């Protein structure tokens, strides 16, 4: 398949693997920020191709994983309102809330629909004018522009029954907070898709402030191996900086138009991240101008007190302080079928990826 096979070329991957082995002389810890990277690394078995000097940590870049349990409890409360259709990406459907899941509410009769795009949600709103359609907006700069476009579209077409419940977040505060909290890493495998929107600026800030290498990486095996090689080279030569490996998608200036839409619809607010707590100006609330499309403003619900599972270390996993296998619940009481924490639910969650691809090796 064009645009994929080139980046899954065995000879090329093995050549890069050999090169990494050759030049990597001292231990180095790299964090892949993005959940998509975690999944690819495990799916293709990349750890088996790296020398012992290299340690990979999974970071906070799985939207489902960092979202608060309160967000889910509130979504569940919305789903119990009469005449409300909840639309969501499939990832959220099985994430445990304090006492229920969207899956369970659906079985109990709530109208909860899985969509592949927020635009499908807009369409559902258009077709059901007598109902309120709520889209559960999660994700970083990759998904938030689509949510912004939906709000702008609803405003333009006067689809007044479309509401966005935003848990959208921006990546840089989390990347900085991890280092501030003392997580010891020597470089970031920086998020590829987020950077298509933001450009290199977010990595520049991190690299400068913390003297850390940041390589903006694609998602295929060749991309990831090359990115690791670039970071190892930077580290060995002691010249940390920002490089783009994912050149076919990322431009230094990013996607200006998408950012304009984000600025139009959202305003930054303090937000809670699993494992990191409240980070200043890290969440994307909906601008006053569009408050009639803001589920939080338009729908009133009582949300149950948040209850977290005891023993779940998703927070520490997200900070890269612990490996999923170090969790007492991992693969015992916490499995993808019966997840205790969000990192086991999401396809992009580190616990899920380890469970699926790396549980016993």
């Amino acid at each position, binding site marked *: 398949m064009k645009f994929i096979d080139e980046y899954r070329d065995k000879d090329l991957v093995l050549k890069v693997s050999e090169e990494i082995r050759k030049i990597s002389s001292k231990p180095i810890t790299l964090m892949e920020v993005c959940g998509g990277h975690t999944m690819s690394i495990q799916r*293709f078995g990349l750890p088996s191709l790296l020398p012992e000097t290299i340690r990979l940590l999974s970071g906070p870049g799985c939207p489902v994983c960092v979202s608060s349990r309160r967000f889910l409890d509130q979504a569940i409360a919305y789903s119990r309102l009469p005449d409300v259709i909840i639309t969501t990406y499939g990832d959220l459907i099985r994430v445990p809330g304090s006492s229920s899941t969207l899956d369970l509410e659906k079985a109990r009769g709530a109208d909860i629909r899985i969509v592949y795009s927020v635009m499908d949600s807009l369409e559902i709103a258009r077709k059901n004018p007598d109902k309120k359609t709520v889209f559960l907006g999660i994700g970083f700069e990759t998904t938030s522009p689509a949510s912004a476009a939906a709000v702008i579209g609803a405003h333009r077409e006067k689809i007044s029954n479309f509401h966005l419940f935003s848990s959208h977040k921006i990546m840089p505060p989390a990347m900085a907070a991890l280092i501030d909290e003392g997580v010891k890493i020597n470089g970031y495998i920086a998020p590829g898709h987020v950077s298509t929107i933001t450009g290199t600026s977010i990595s520049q800030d991190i690299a400068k402030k913390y003297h850390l290498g940041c390589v903006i990486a694609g998602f295929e095996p060749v991309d990831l191996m090359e990115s690791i090689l670039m970071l190892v080279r930077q580290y060995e030569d002691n010249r940390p900086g920002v490089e783009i490996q994912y050149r076919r998608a990322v431009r230094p200036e990013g996607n200006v138009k998408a950012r304009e839409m984000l600025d139009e619809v959202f305003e930054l607010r303090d937000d809670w991240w699993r494992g990191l707590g409240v980070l200043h100006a890290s969440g994307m609330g909906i601008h006053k101008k569009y408050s009639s499309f803001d589920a939080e403003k338009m729908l009133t619900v009582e949300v149950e007190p948040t209850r977290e599972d005891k023993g779940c270390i998703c927070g520490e996993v997200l900070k890269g302080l612990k490996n999923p296998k170090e969790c007492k619940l991992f693969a015992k009481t916490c499995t993808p079928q019966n997840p205790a924490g969000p990192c086991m639910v999401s396809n992009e969650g580190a616990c*899920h990826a380890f469970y*699926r691809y790396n*549980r016993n090796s």
Partner: protein
Amino acid sequence: MHSIVTTGILNKMIKNDKILLGHGSGGKLSHDLISSLFVKYFNNDYLDKQTDAAILDLPANQVSFTTDSFVVDPIFFPGGDIGKLAVCGTVNDLAVSGATPLFLSAGFIIEEGFPIVDLETIVCSMATEAKKAGVVIVTGDTKVVNRGKCDKIFINTAGIGKIREQHLHIGEGNLIRPGDKIIINGSIGDHGMAVLAARKELNIQSDIQSDCASLNGLIQNVLAASDGIKFMRDATRGGLATVLAELADKKNFGIIVEESQLLVRPKVRAFCELLGFEPLHVANEGKVVIIADPGSAAKIIHAMNDHEFGKDSRVIGEIVSGYPGKAFINTGIGGRRILDMLAGEQLPRIC
């Protein structure tokens, strides 16, 4: 063979167009439906007698017996429909356990208002597939539920087959040893992605065909060609990965699969990439995984290649003494990772 049907009744029913609650009542409408549709298409002496239970001649001491229910959505998809699937699914469950499928039952739960023409299409495709597989549908049942109480039509089939003494071990696989080869009869992921693509909500144009097929002919050829078969299983829900991970679980051997040997059709692969699915976890309805003695593998592949459903048969891996209880895959780029069962439901109502 004679049928009690008069086409007149069917024509009159099709004019009425929809299944009514009365069609499942056991009264006149039920009688008309059974006579004009089921007896007409399934067409055999057992049904013609219209007895409450079919009396069967079973030629073997050991019989194999299985049942499966079908709720696929949508009911018509490229490469098949719920009727064909209901026959193939049960035929295959019997065949992979080493049995020769002989008789099927068919139970229908139909939603009030279901178009009779669609029911006719489904019944016709069941009859065609049963004939092709050499099985007879000897008994059945129809229930109609209120509109909204089931989605269009659900079908249950049960099946009976005869099994020879020397094939009794195949279902359990207790003769599997390190060095045995893992064989599959072609591409993976076709059925799941064909059904998914046929769902309107995704709005995807695709001509991916389901691999839905009765495999008993292919399997008969293989069993006749070699006595080196250690295990067979059809790789349905959960896909190839789930079959292999289940097989290795709690055993004293491990499994290694070579990703480079797997056949995934380009359109299936592209669709999987788009949706983030793993082809190894996507359902098949016409694929059998065979574990065979290494010395017999070539002969088995040769026999499979002679059959229309075995043209792309290949060895994809082997049983190893290392990694007991686990299945691993050597990835196409030279890495290695665990091959696990599908966690949770990837696609609801795939069969």
